């Protein structure tokens, strides 16, 4: 009996449940899909080469899923409370008819379970579909053969989803039962007549609040720009965050009062058609619900920002990767710190001895010691990076007349405090030959510039076109006006920042005064016929043969010597590529996941509010129709209200996002040469689809409520 009643109730109030159901459905869908990523077929492939990465992706997804579960849980509880409040009169009638409070609570619980279970089932089905789509997308991202695709149902994700939503429903069910059984019959029955008191604020307080909010937000933006978003532990960042929160709250609490005040004073604009009604309606909504609008605004801000920044970072990664993997393997030995600390004195001594013994060639060092190396490596090119402490980046910029302060670099860049990197032209050309590029011809007494980073592009151009002379290692050099772009090692992000390419005799001079280069890099190509999957292992074997491990190395888990010339660390192109793609995939999925969930949450909070407000306002629409408003006028007012109610928090959130993107663009994207256009247009896309979708569904539901309540004759 109770079950039948519950089923009938759900069916009858299908419209109330629509938005709730859709939101749950979407929540379950993405929750499953993103939690299942680690179990997909593709990942078993990636797992073989890089098990850490798959574990990382799974951990990160699980971590953020807890946050997502909290947001969804809040959402379910919130929408459910709204539905319950709307049905108080009906529940009161059940009590009046002699049903026990326990039975009424039972009906409500059954209804919750019914909607919950059906959305869980449908959401899981959609989630399985979505996870396969994600799998296809990531397979093409990794350029994997699509024919290796196999359908996978992730039991981990299934378990997590069911557990998470079961907990949410149980909590909601308990809350509902408490709410119903606590209610007195009288309050349940009188719930319908309690009309909403209109919250009105004066124009002057609103205006003051508004000005204060704009000032706070402007100051917050300025702090954010100063912070540059590069250091989130900076006090400026926390201050900017706090100011943004307070400023946004003041903004949403005052904007309606101010707009009403201003528009009322311009009568020509005001007294036209239903505009006074529409505006008052909206203002009263905004004024009574400004706290939830504020929360919606914050949700939107986080959603759009994390999505666009994530997409931006992911496009940075993909554009840089190809350039960073021109060699098969890089063996790197940084030595700039050897001179600074006493504990490294023996390492410096050691390096000098090894360098002299192998004629300054790391390739020789390995080749004479390792048979595996001789089989594995066909070609190599070494590049030693030197610096002249007398020519710091700051001094260089000053000499060539480059204004760092107004550039993207900023006056505090690390680069400016240390000696400019210098490499010999013959080593550069050997490296270029290895990556298949033509050599650079450098006349005696001149220099060229190598730069791969957009951040230092301006400086490099200035140095390259400088007409005077630079003193490097005691030698006066003029610019050959050549600016080249050549990476010097395997890397995810090319990091060559304004390196001076000088004649070899300058390097000899630096060697005489400095002794050791800052960093020594050996780039290699594998011999033909080396199996790419084996190369990594073979390289480790070569290292072990050439560099017997010390006790310290063994303790730290290396089975070869490290931390000394010629090897501190090594990167292969294939592992770099896998890592970068894995990282890119992680960032992309996370951006999609968070962006989607936060937009859905924001959209559904507004939808639920707008729907219930429309139900409460049906009497007003009836009055309007009786006074002779046309159907077009009435529904137009509903449309304008819904549209503006959705747009106010969005506009504010987008302002914040624009500020963040602008700062990010200045400090990160443009430095890496990535256009913000792609992430921004993707963000616009997701907002239009998800948030716009909620807006559209809400308008259609609201308009159906009004049309249904007024009937075709009244609403002519």
């Amino acid at each position: 009996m109770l079950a039948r009643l519950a089923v009938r109730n759900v069916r009858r109030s299908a419209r109330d449940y629509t938005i709730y159901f859709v939101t749950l459905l979407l929540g379950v869908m993405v929750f499953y899909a993103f939690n299942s990523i680690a179990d997909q077929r593709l990942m078993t492939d990636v797992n073989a080469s890089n098990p850490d990465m798959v574990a990382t992706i799974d951990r990160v997804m699980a971590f953020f899923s807890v946050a997502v579960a909290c947001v969804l849980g809040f959402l379910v509880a919130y929408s459910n409370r709204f539905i319950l409040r709307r049905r108080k009169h009906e529940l009161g009638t059940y009590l009046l008819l002699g049903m026990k409070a326990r039975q009424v609570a039972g009906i409500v619980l059954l209804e919750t379970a019914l909607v919950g279970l059906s959305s869980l089932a449908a959401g899981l089905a959609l989630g399985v579909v979505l996870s396969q789509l994600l799998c296809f997308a990531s397979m093409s991202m990794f350029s994997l053969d699509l024919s290796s695709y196999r359908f996978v149902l992730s039991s981990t994700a299934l378990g997590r989803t069911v557990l998470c939503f079961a907990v949410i429903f149980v909590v909601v069910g308990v809350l509902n039962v408490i709410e119903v059984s606590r209610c007195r019959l009288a309050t349940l029955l009188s719930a319908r007549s309690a009309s909403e008191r209109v919250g009105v604020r004066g124009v002057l307080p609103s205006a003051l609040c508004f000005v204060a909010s704009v000032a706070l937000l402007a100051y917050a933006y300025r702090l954010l720009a100063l912070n540059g978003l590069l250091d989130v532990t900076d006090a400026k960042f926390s201050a900017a965050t706090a100011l943004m929160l307070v400023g946004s709250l003041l903004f949403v609490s005052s904007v309606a009062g101010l707009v009403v005040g201003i528009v009322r004073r311009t009568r020509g604009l005001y007294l036209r058609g239903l505009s006074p009604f529409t505006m008052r309606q909206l203002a009263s909504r905004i004024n009574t619900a400004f706290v939830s609008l504020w929360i919606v605004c914050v949700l939107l801000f986080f959603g759009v920002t994390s999505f666009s920044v994530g997409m931006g970072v992911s496009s940075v990664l993909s554009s840089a990767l190809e350039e960073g993997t021109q060699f098969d393997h890089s063996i790197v030995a940084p030595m700039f710190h050897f001179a600074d600390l006493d504990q490294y004195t023996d390492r410096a001594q050691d390096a000098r001895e090894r360098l002299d013994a192998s004629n300054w060639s790391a390739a020789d060092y390995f080749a004479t010691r390792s048979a595996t190396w001789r089989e594995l490596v066909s070609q190599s090119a070494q590049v030693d990076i030197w610096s002249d402490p007398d020519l710091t980046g700051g001094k260089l910029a000053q000499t060539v007349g480059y204004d760092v302060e107004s550039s993207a670099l900023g006056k505090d860049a690390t680069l400016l405090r240390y000696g400019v990197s210098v490499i010999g032209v013959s080593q550069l050309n050997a490296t270029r030959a290895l990556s298949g590029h033509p050599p650079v011809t450098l006349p005696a007494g001149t220099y060229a510039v190598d730069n791969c980073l957009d951040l230092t592009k301006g400086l490099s151009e200035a140095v390259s076109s400088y007409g005077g002379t630079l003193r490097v290692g005691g030698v006066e050099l003029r610019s050959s006006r050549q600016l080249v772009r050549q990476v010097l090692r395997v890397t995810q992000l090319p990091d060559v920042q304004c390196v001076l390419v000088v004649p070899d005799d300058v390097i000899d001079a630096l060697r005489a005064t400095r002794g050791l280069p800052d960093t020594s890099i050996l780039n290699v190509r594998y011999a033909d016929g080396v199996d790419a999957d084996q190369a990594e292992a073979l390289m480790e074997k070569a290292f072990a043969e050439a560099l017997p491990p010390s006790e310290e190395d063994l303790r730290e888990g290396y089975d070869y010597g490290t931390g000394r010339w010629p090897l501190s660390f090594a990167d292969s192109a294939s592992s770099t590529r896998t890592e970068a793609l894995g990282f890119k995939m992680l960032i992309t999925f996370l951006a999609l996941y968070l962006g989607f969930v936060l937009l859905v949450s924001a959209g559904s909070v507004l939808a639920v509010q707008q729907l219930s407000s429309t139900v409460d306002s049906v009497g007003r629409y009836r009055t309007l129709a009786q006074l002779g408003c046309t159907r077009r006028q009435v529904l137009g007012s509903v449309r304008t209200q819904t549209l503006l109610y959705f747009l106010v928090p969005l506009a504010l959130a987008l302002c914040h996002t624009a500020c963040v993107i602008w700062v990010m663009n200045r400090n990160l994207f443009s430095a890496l040469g990535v256009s913000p256009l792609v992430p921004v247009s993707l963000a616009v896309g997701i907002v239009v689809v998800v948030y716009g979708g909620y807006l559209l569904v809400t308008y259609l539901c609201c308009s159906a409520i009004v049309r249904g309540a007024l009937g075709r004759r009244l609403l002519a």
Partner: protein
Amino acid sequence: MTTALNDLSLTVRDGEFVSVMGPSGSGKSTLLNCVATIDAVTSGSIRLAGEDVTRLRGRELARFRRERLGFIFQDANLVETLTGFENVALALTIKGSRPVEIGPRVRVVAERLGVMDVLDKYPHQMSGGQRQRVAAARAVVGAPSLVLADEPTGSLDSKSARVLLETLEKIHRNAGATIMMVTHDAYAASFSQRTVFIKDGTLFNEVVCGTDDRKGYFGRIMEVVSFLGGGASHVG
């Protein structure tokens, strides 16, 4: 399907103030709703200044309501989110009146109905009587051909009811408005010129004020009410 009104013929002259009385379920509200084009008739016609309103469709219905009718409801039906001024102005703005004309016209009517001091207040800040007079102002500000009042005193105390009825009388006398008022209250009906009684969906009787004073007219209305069986005295 039950028939609410049948074989009912009623003529209201231009500028006349008519009350409609009858027991609960007699069809008096249906009559008003049919005239107001809110309910549709299955047969027959309702003519207002020669125009058959039962034939109006779609946008014509809305135009008819906003151009020709003024409404006063039992519970005022003011829009709670709008001030008194805005509620009265609403009747003009939805007609598309020029914004510069609206202010003066609202104030003229408000002055006449004694609601000047509540124009800047919201409905919940007004008394029941004030709300109802603002509703009356909204009904007449557009100078409609016909003012329809559905139990306008139903939710008022006797003093407020009296003030409102005098207001209606004033509107009728000064502006020459045609008023059709549905009421169950013989006292309210005694402010009109003619009272028609409806029973079981058809015209039962009518009482004309004529040259009588209000007291005499009231007495004659009461006679019909008691004849109808007291049913009318306790409906609400």
